[in-house]
């Protein structure tokens, strides 16, 4: 009788196929070679993207996950391969990105012996993963992967790591994939309590100046329509966090802008004037709240949140509604009164005009000689489609691009929000692009960040992913320099960069590349880039010492937001 058992390595691949995984971002090595060997036979079912570094693989998987809404998958070998994933794991954890990371491990008899390329990656990644496991038997691989996908994608999503010993990869076992539908100790979707909805509605209905802050929870919950319905009925002004951008079109009449350290003037300032603050799927990050002791103290806070640990963590609320906002928002919408808040909304618009004349006009329509980052984003807006995805790195360009990019639809914002990982954008843009080849993906990156993962231009070359890379080059680690200017008496300690010829580098990777130094060439070049069919690298030399305003300096209150 024919042996129906297959090797553990093949079980890995067949399990991924069963989970509808279409892309693996990874890098082979000794301890994962059996899986890569098995993958060779499944090339028609799963595409593998060979990045140039494991950090690139996990950031690409993050970009893929954020745009597709699916679980991103990355793979690496043991030891340094596995530890190179750690930054991305931490990034995915804090930004709630669903990932399954598969690492090879030395054979189980060698565990604990300091064998070649052995690291305790389960121990390393324990605080940063939503769940992790080491598998030492082929029979345990499929259940671990099933459980991993369920945990990664459900509730508040996050990264999962599955470490598989080499002997488990080589061992024979039966394959029978049973999707994981539930775990006794894990309840990802709390049941929304009607009493909490009623209490929230009462507070909202009594408000004179209610104000909504929305975050990525709306996107994760696929609750964009439900959120819009709530706003349409109540007429309440709404501002977004960094990762909430795109959950509501910026064209919506009640959209009032962006929150946080470099967000908009009105939404920050008026946080301390509302009487009811309704937080939807956001976690009151310190970059949003500034000094907590002086944050919205006058307001009753209503918090709609899936993760119980976020409730009362930073800001104490009057009413909390625990549960998925996809479920809670329609229940709340039913119970709240129809309303209009024209006068209150006008207060935002007045301050918006103030920000426009003090900051926005200077950024978008500059009269000085040097190019600004803002005008580059203005042209990108001119030539982008509504569903274009903006992927940004970390720093000044990130804040400028976020401030001025016009978000029209959901899942158009990919950035490293919570961890602030420089080097994130280039690989994340690749992943975002592969998630949907029909969409424009624009990667905006600084000269510091690009050099942290610049080798991923090679992956873009190999995949031919039509990513538009826009390098805003000011020959500085700009955000640190800005802080040095404002808070360290202009002592520019190790923030100026002697940079290479980036265009030559991009061309060496077979990308069409252009450098813009003059304003008159900017619009046409951006237009050329946006309609170009393949990948495109645009370097724009921008003003060396521009700053990002508005700004709430660390430790200050939201009402101390500075325009200059």
């Amino acid at each position, binding site marked *: 009788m024919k042996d129906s058992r297959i090797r553990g390595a093949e079980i890995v691949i067949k399990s991924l196929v069963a989970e509808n995984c279409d892309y693996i971002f990874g890098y082979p090595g000794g301890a994962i070679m059996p899986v890569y060997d098995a993958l060779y036979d499944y090339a028609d079912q799963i595409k593998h993207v060979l990045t140039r570094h494991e950090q690139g693989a996990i950031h690409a998987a993050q970009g893929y996950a954020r745009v597709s809404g699916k679980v991103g998958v990355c793979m690496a070998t043991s030891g340094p391969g596995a530890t190179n994933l750690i930054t991305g794991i931490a990034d995915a954890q804090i930004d709630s990105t669903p990932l399954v990371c598969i690492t090879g491990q030395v054979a189980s008899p060698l565990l604990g012996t300091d064998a070649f390329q052995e690291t305790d990656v389960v121990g390393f990644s*324990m*605080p940063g993963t939503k769940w992790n496991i080491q598998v030492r038997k082929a029979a345990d691989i499929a259940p671990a992967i099933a459980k991993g996908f369920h*945990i990664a994608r459900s509730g508040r999503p996050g990264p999962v790591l599955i470490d598989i010993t080499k002997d488990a990869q080589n061992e024979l076992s039966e394959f029978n994939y049973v999707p994981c539908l539930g775990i*006794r*100790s894990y309840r990802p979707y709390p049941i929304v309590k009607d009493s909490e909805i009623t209490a929230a509605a009462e507070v909202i209905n009594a408000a004179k100046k209610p104000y909504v802050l929305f975050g990525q929870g709306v996107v994760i919950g696929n609750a964009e329509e439900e959120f819009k319905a709530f706003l349409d009925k109540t007429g309440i002004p709404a501002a977004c966090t960094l990762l909430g951008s795109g959950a509501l079109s910026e064209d919506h009449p009640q959209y009032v802008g962006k929150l946080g350290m470099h967000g908009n003037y009105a939404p920050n300032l008026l946080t301390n004037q509302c009487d009811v603050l309704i937080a939807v799927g956001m976690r009151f990050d310190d970059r949003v709240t500034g000094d907590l002791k002086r944050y919205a103290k006058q307001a009753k806070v209503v918090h709609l949140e899936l993760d119980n*640990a976020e409730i009362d*963590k930073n800001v104490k609320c009057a009413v909390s509604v625990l549960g998925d906002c996809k479920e809670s928002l329609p229940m709340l919408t039913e119970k709240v009164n129809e309303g209009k808040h024209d006068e209150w909304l006008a207060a935002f618009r007045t301050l918006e005009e103030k920000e426009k004349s003090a900051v926005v006009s200077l950024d978008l329509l500059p009269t000085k000689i040097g190019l600004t980052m803002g005008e580059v984003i203005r042209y990108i807006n001119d030539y982008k489609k509504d569903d274009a995805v903006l992927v940004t790195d970390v720093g000044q360009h990130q804040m400028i691009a976020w401030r001025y990019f016009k978000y029209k639809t959901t899942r158009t914002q990919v950035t490293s929000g919570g961890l602030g990982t420089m080097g994130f954008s280039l690989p994340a843009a690749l992943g975002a692009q592969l998630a949907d080849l029909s969409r424009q993906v624009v990667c905006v990156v600084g000269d510091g960040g690009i050099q942290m993962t610049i080798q991923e231009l090679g992956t873009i070359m190999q995949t031919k992913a039509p990513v538009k890379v826009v390098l805003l080059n000011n020959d500085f680690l700009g955000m640190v320099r800005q802080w040095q200017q404002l808070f360290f008496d202009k002592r520019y300690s190790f923030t100026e960069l002697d940079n290479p010829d980036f265009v030559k580098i991009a061309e060496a990777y077979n990308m069409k590349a252009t450098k813009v130094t003059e304003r008159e060439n900017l619009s046409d070049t951006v237009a050329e880039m946006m309609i170009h069919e393949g990948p495109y690298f645009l370097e724009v030399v921008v003003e060396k010492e521009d700053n990002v305003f508005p700004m709430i300096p660390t430790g200050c209150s939201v009402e101390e937001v500075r325009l200059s």
Partner: protein
Amino acid sequence: MNRYTVSLFTENFIGILNRVTLIFTRRGVNIDALTASESKEDGVHRITIEVTTTEDQVLQIVKQTEKIIDVIKSFYYKDDEVVYQEIALYKIPISSLDPGLEKVIRQYNARIISAEKEFVVIEMTGHKEDTKALLEILKDFNILEFARSGRVAVAKPMGTIEQYLNN
């Protein structure tokens, strides 16, 4: 700052203790004592942790521990909300065994659980204050070793984990 007992019910999963203690470590809360054991439910383990901290902090810790996939439920209690005990062992040289020591043992409801050629081992179960009081007295009897367990505790509020498991 108050003393709290954190009581966690978990699946018996490798590394669970590590995951739980990481939550305390990250917030800089020192664990005063820790015990782990089976519970009455098959496959459900319980971890009892004693900490001295603020109520806000312990509440956050409990919520964070509940986020761990293999933690079924986590509770916290003040001292008057739990019935708890600790066990202490005292190793005394045989030469110290005299009527005075016997009187102390009786007075504290302690007992000798092992008598060896050179020493005896006294056991006492009680609250930390009681076992510590005995320790102070036994110092006069040239105590050789002392060891005290973490807290084992059951909650006074009725029906907690069962209700959760059956929901």
